[in-house]
C-alpha cells in the first residue's frame, strides 16, 4: 500500500480539525482578445481555478491560470500552498507559509519553485500589513548559493476603495557560459584544451506592486501595477486594469487592458499588451484572492436600529463580501441572509425584544464569528458569540 505523503497528512489533519470550511472560487471566462504580437482579434477561453480549505489554524489553497487560444486549455501557472498560524497576539498573527509554484512560458515549464516563508501579520477592520522572510528552491537554481528573501506589504480600506502595496522578492539564477577552448591538431581535428564551463549566480529579483480596487454594487474596477527589478535585470513595468459588471449572481461581464505577470493569476497573464472583453461564469464578480496578508471581506461597521415596536433593522457594512448572514436567538439560530443594498451595505429586518441577544455573523459562507466591535463571550461550543443589548 502506498504511504501517504506529507501533503496528504497535512490535508487530513486540516480536514479533521474543526471547524473546516472549503470554498471553491473558480471562474471560467469566454473572451475576445485584441492585440499582442499578432495584432489581431482572437477568441480565448480562460480558466482560473481556485480552492481554499480553511481549518482555523491552517489553510490549504490552490489557484492558477489557464488559457486556451487554439482549442486546448492549458494551465500556464499554478500555485499550491499551505499556511499555519503558529501564534496570535491581539490583532496580529505569526504564519508559516509553504508554497509550490509552477509556471509555463510558451508551453514549456519555465519555473518550478518551492518557497518557505515566515510571516508576521496584523489585520484591523480598515488596514493590515505583513512582514516576512524566507527562502526558495527553484528548478533552475543549479548550484548557485541561495539567499534569504524578504517581503513587506500592507493594505488599507476606506469606503468603497481598497488600496494595497507590497514589496517582495523571488530568487532567479543568472548562468554565464564560458565556451570551450579548442586547438587544431596536426591531423586537422579539434582537441579540447579547456572544456565548456557554466557558472551559476543566484540573483534576487524584487517586485514592487500596488493595487487599487473600487466596488459599488455589481461593478468592480481594479488596477494592478508593478515593477520588477534586480541586478543584471532590466527593470520591467507592468500594469493591468480590469473591470467587472455582475449581471446575475453567476454571470459577469469582464474587460481587461494592459499586461500582467503570471504571478497575479489573472485572465490572460501575458507579457504582451492586450485587451479582452468577455463574460465570466463565477459565483461572484471576481474570485477571491487567497494570498496571506491580502485584504479579505470584513464587517467594518454595523448597527441595530429600531423601526417599530419589537421590530429592528440590522445594517451592516462589509466591503468585498458576496453574502452576509446572521444567526442568533432572534432567528431561532438559523442562518438568515441580509439583503444587499448596493456597495458594501447590507440590511435585514428582525423581530427582537429589548434585552440581551446572542448572535453571530458570517461572510461568504465563511466561519460564524462575533461581529467586530461587539461584546463577545464563549458560546460553550468552542467558539464565541456576540452579545448585544437592545434597549
Amino acid at each position, binding site marked *: 500500500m502506498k504511504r501517504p505523503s506529507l501533503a496528504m497528512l497535512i490535508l487530513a489533519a486540516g480536514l479533521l480539525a*474543526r471547524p473546516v470550511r472549503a470554498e471553491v472560487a473558480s471562474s471560467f471566462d469566454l473572451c475576445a482578445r485584441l492585440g499582442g504580437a499578432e495584432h489581431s482579434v482572437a477568441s480565448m477561453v480562460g480558466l482560473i481555478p481556485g480552492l481554499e480549505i480553511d481549518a482555523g489554524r491552517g489553510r490549504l489553497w490552490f489557484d492558477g491560470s489557464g488559457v486556451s487560444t487554439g482549442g486546448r486549455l492549458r494551465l500556464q501557472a499554478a500555485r499550491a500552498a499551505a499556511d499555519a498560524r503558529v501564534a496570535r497576539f491581539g490583532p496580529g498573527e505569526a504564519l508559516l507559509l509553504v508554497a509550490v509554484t509552477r509556471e509555463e512560458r510558451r508551453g514549456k515549464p519555465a519555473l518550478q519553485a518551492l518557497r518557505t516563508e515566515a510571516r508576521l501579520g496584523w489585520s484591523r477592520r480598515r488596514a493590515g500589513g505583513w512582514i516576512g522572510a524566507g527562502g526558495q528552491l527553484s528548478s533552475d537554481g543549479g548550484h548557485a548559493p541561495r539567499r534569504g528573501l524578504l517581503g513587506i506589504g500592507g493594505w488599507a480600506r476606506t469606503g468603497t476603495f481598497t488600496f494595497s502595496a507590497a514589496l517582495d522578492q523571488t530568487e532567479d539564477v543568472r548562468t554565464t557560459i564560458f565556451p570551450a577552448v579548442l586547438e587544431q591538431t596536426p591531423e586537422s581535428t579539434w582537441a579540447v584544451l579547456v572544456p565548456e564551463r557554466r557558472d551559476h549566480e543566484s540573483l534576487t529579483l524584487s517586485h514592487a506592486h500596488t493595487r487599487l480596487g473600487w466596488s459599488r454594487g455589481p461593478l468592480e474596477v481594479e488596477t494592478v501595477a508593478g515593477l520588477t527589478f534586480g541586478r543584471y535585470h532590466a527593470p520591467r513595468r507592468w500594469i493591468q486594469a480590469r473591470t467587472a459588471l455582475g449581471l446575475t449572481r453567476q454571470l459577469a461581464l469582464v474587460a481587461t487592458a494592459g499586461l500582467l505577470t503570471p504571478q497575479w493569476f489573472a485572465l490572460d497573464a501575458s507579457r504582451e499588451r492586450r485587451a479582452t472583453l468577455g463574460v465570466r461564469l463565477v459565483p461572484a464578480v471576481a474570485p477571491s484572492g487567497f494570498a496571506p496578508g491580502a485584504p479579505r471581506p470584513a464587517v467594518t461597521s454595523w448597527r441595530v436600529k429600531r423601526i417599530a415596536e419589537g421590530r429592528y433593522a440590522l445594517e451592516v457594512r462589509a466591503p468585498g463580501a458576496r453574502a452576509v448572514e446572521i444567526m442568533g436567538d432572534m432567528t*431561532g439560530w438559523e442562518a438568515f441572509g441580509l439583503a444587499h443594498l448596493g456597495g458594501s451595505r447590507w440590511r435585514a429586518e428582525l423581530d427582537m425584544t429589548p434585552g*440581551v441577544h*446572542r448572535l453571530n455573523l458570517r461572510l461568504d459562507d465563511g466561519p*460564524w464569528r462575533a461581529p467586530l466591535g461587539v461584546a463577545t463571550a464563549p458560546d460553550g461550543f468552542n467558539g464565541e458569540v456576540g*452579545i448585544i*443589548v437592545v434597549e
Partner: protein
Amino acid sequence: MPRAMIAAVRTVLAMIILALAGPASADDARLRARLDPETLGQVEAIVASASRSGLPTAPLVATALEGTSKRAPGPRIVLAVRRHAAALSAARDAFGDRASESELVAGAGALLAGLDPDTLVRLRDARPRQSLVIPLVVLSDLLARSVPAGAAARAVLGATRAGARDGDLLKLRQRIEQDIREGASPAEAAAARARTLVHGTGIGKNPGAQRPGRKRSEVSLP
C-alpha cells in the same frame, strides 16, 4: 444487537420521553427536526425537568438550537443545556420564588458569563421590589466586554444601591462601552463611570464627561 434495532429502540425511547414531556410545541418541533434521537432524548429530559421545576425552558431550547447550528457534537450540546438549566436554577435560588421569568433568564445569562451567585443575592437585596432585568443586562454586557466580574459587580451594585434607575444604568453601560472603545481599560472604565454616576453629577442626571481613557491620572481603582 443489530444497529438498526438499537436505533429503533432509541427512537422509541425518544418518542416515549417526548410523549411524557407533554404536548408538542413549536420548540419541540424545531428540536426534533435538528437533533439526533439520542441528543434529543437527553435535551428533552432536561427541558421537561426544568419545566416541572417552574424554570423557563425557552433559553434551554435556544441553547440546543445554537449547538446544532454550530455543528457541535451531541454530548457538548447536552452539557451546554445542562449548564444553562443549572444557571437558571441558581438564579432562582438567589432571587427567590417570586422572581419573574425575565429576571431568571437575565440572571442565568450573567452567571454563565462568570458572575458570582452572591452578587445576584446582593442585587436582590439592593432592589427588593423593582425588576432586576436591566441591572442584570448591564452586568452581562460589562462581563462580555472583558470587565472583570468583581469590577462589574461593584459598578452595578454601587449604582443600584445609590438608587440608580434603569435609564441611568443603561447610560452607564453606554459610557463604559464608549470608554473601552477609546482605549480605557475595562476595569478602569467601569470603576470611573460608576463613581461618576454615584458621586459626580448625581443619579438621574447626565453622568459627567470624565473619560478614564483621557484623564488616567485622575482615575484610581476602588
